[in-house]
């Protein structure tokens, strides 16, 4: 029997999903409620990482069930991290530019999308 907590079925998939759901809800709450765009970014990171946990959790779930070579979720996680990094870079660039023009990073003051 292979020893390790990784394969310990007591740490069941459900728990991981609960964790990721909590993270997701926190992120969504942050996105909806906070004024500061930087904090909104951080909240988006939380959402993304909630997704990542889901990926990992389900990969593990499949491996525990016997599909030793199942790595799709892990692969996607790396993609998500990469894209998130790029997105953060561009997003922060926009924020800097926005601040230079409007002297604010509060989203309730930025309503340019209005008709």
């Amino acid at each position, binding site marked *: 029997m292979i020893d390790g907590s990784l394969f310990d079925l007591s740490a069941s998939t459900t728990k991981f999903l609960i964790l990721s759901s909590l993270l997701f809800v926190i992120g*969504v709450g942050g*996105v*909806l*409620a906070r004024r500061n765009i930087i904090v909104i970014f951080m909240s988006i990171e939380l959402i993304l990482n909630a997704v990542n946990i889901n990926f990992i959790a389900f990969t593990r779930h499949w491996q525990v069930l016997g599909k030793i070579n199942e790595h799709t979720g892990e692969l996607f996680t790396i993609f998500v991290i990469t894209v998130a990094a790029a997105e953060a870079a561009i997003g922060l660039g926009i924020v800097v530019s926005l601040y230079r023009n409007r002297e604010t990073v509060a*989203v*309730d003051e*930025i*309503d*340019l*999308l*209005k*008709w």
Partner: protein
Amino acid sequence: MLKLLFLVPTLPLIGAILNGLFGRRFRFSERTVAAIACGTTGLSLLIAIGAIIDYSRSLAPTLYRNTAFAYTWFDGGLARTVTGSVRQFRVEWIYQLDPLAAVMMFIVTFVGFLIHVFSVGYMSGEGGYYRFFSFLNLFMFMMLVLVLASNFTMMFVGWEGVGLCSYLLIGFYFERDEAAYASKKAFITNRIGDMGFLLGVFGVFALFGTLDFGELAEVFRSGGAASYVESLGQWGVMSWIALGLFVGAAGKSAQIPLFVWLPDAMAGPTPVSALIHAATMVTAGVYLLARVNYIFAAAPSAMVVVAIIGALTALLGAAIGLTQNDIKKVLAYSTVSQLGLMFLACGVGAFTAAIFHVFTHAFFKAQLFLGSGSVIHSLHHEQDMRKMGGLKKYLPKTHWTMIASWLAICGVIPFAGFFSKDEILHRTFLNGKVLYAIAIVASFLTAFYMTRLMAMTFWAPERFDHQPHESPPIMWIPLAILGVLALVAGWVGIPHALGGSNNFAAWLEPILIKTAANTEVHEASSSIELSLMLVSLLVALAGILLARWIYLKRPEVADSLSETAAGVPYRMSLNKFYVDEAYNVFPIGATLRTSEVLMQVDARGVDGLANGSARLTQIGSSISNWLDKYVVDLLVNLQGWLVRAGSVVLRSVQTGLVQNYALLMVLGLIAFVVYLIAAR
């Protein structure tokens, strides 16, 4: 040479084109212009003479048709003649030569060439030198087309063309009002005649279905036209055709009532008067009558009209010529009178005599005009004979050459005019004594006014202002040639009564249709002819001597005549019998008044209609404007308002705040999840 006949008209045309199109652009010198103009006409003359010689040797008197460069000018459809036969209407552009055309072609090219040469000197230094020669060459072309035409349509081209050139050349000094009016007058008067010509031609086609002279002559010769003469009576259709053609001829040849343009045409340069208004164009009418003599022979009543008009014109022209003081006006009325004599000849059926007179008249009248041109030239454009006199000493060559023409026109044996005029008088005598009397009076007057012209110009005491000078050789040599011809040209037609053989009549005989009038002449006794000659000779001498006596020996007689008893006829003659004034009152005044009335009709009636319809359109358009503005536009705007009102509500959703949108997304997500759970 006969094959080159087409070149006779074509060469002057080339000259006209060269001078007319390039003379100004390339600033041709006078020498170049003269060389082109005289060269082409001279070459044309040589070819014409060669062609006539060839023709007389080989083909005469049959009809020669020059097929080189001939083509179908236009090809109309089928036409039904009044007799019911269906004929193809086709016009060929083809030159023909017959004895008549040969005579005319010779006159035109020969006199034309000499006048071209004369003009080189006469027009020297005038503005528009190239223009003058271009027009003159164009005239030669048109006249030769007229003469050599093989059908009425082609002849009409020449007929109109010479009218055009006459217009252009009369108006050569277009900066002078007088010349401009004269050219218009000539053109419009000719148009009236042309109308008659056209009607005649239409009649010919309607009746015979052909316009070709050869075919027409054949129809008449074979008796195919005889039925028309008889079936339609004295004033039948043939008479109307003949009268129509005569009206055309009267317009072109300045007969009553259309003669008024010719004296005014003297506003043109003198060589033009000599060529167009004495020698060639004005004889086109006589040529036309001789060309279609078969039509006139078939219309005896029209012949009477022609004879009467001719005789009256001869008398009227001579009567007006008596008192004119402008040397060219005298010659112009003299031309009218002589043309009247030719028409008288045609009217009595003496077509050969008429053409004979055309032939001799062309030489002596051209000479007289050129002589007067020489006089005018030497006196620095003085045309009033009262300011001449004594020029015999200064212009000997002009004087002696004009002597020949003077004797010729008076009809003194053996000068050219004697033979031709005498033949006309003889034939007139056989036809009617009244006409003969008129012609004799006209001859007397002719001798009188021509002697008056010579006396006032050359023999009377000197009255001029400028020192005259004899003309250069290029001017007096043509004068001399024509002067010699004024003496000898008549010798080709010495009548049998004088022991001659009348070659001229024999040459022209084949073109004439045989009629009773033609044949009975040969039977007339020569004793009558001889006594008639004596009478006309005596009349001419009487006229000459009387005029000499009055104007040289007793000048005061003329003055007293003009002031006393004979004053009324004198003033009548001086004022040209008030014909122009009468025309101003009746045809011209009536036309003007009619046009005035028509103008009122136009201004009130037609314009009223036009303005009314415009007003209606305006009202209609303002109604439709109102409809467009308040109905159509309302519908369109309503749509716009509806959209706008809807958007006011809907756009409040768009806050522009990212978090609102995100909230909506989340709510949607939650709703979706709830739905999934509930649906399970």
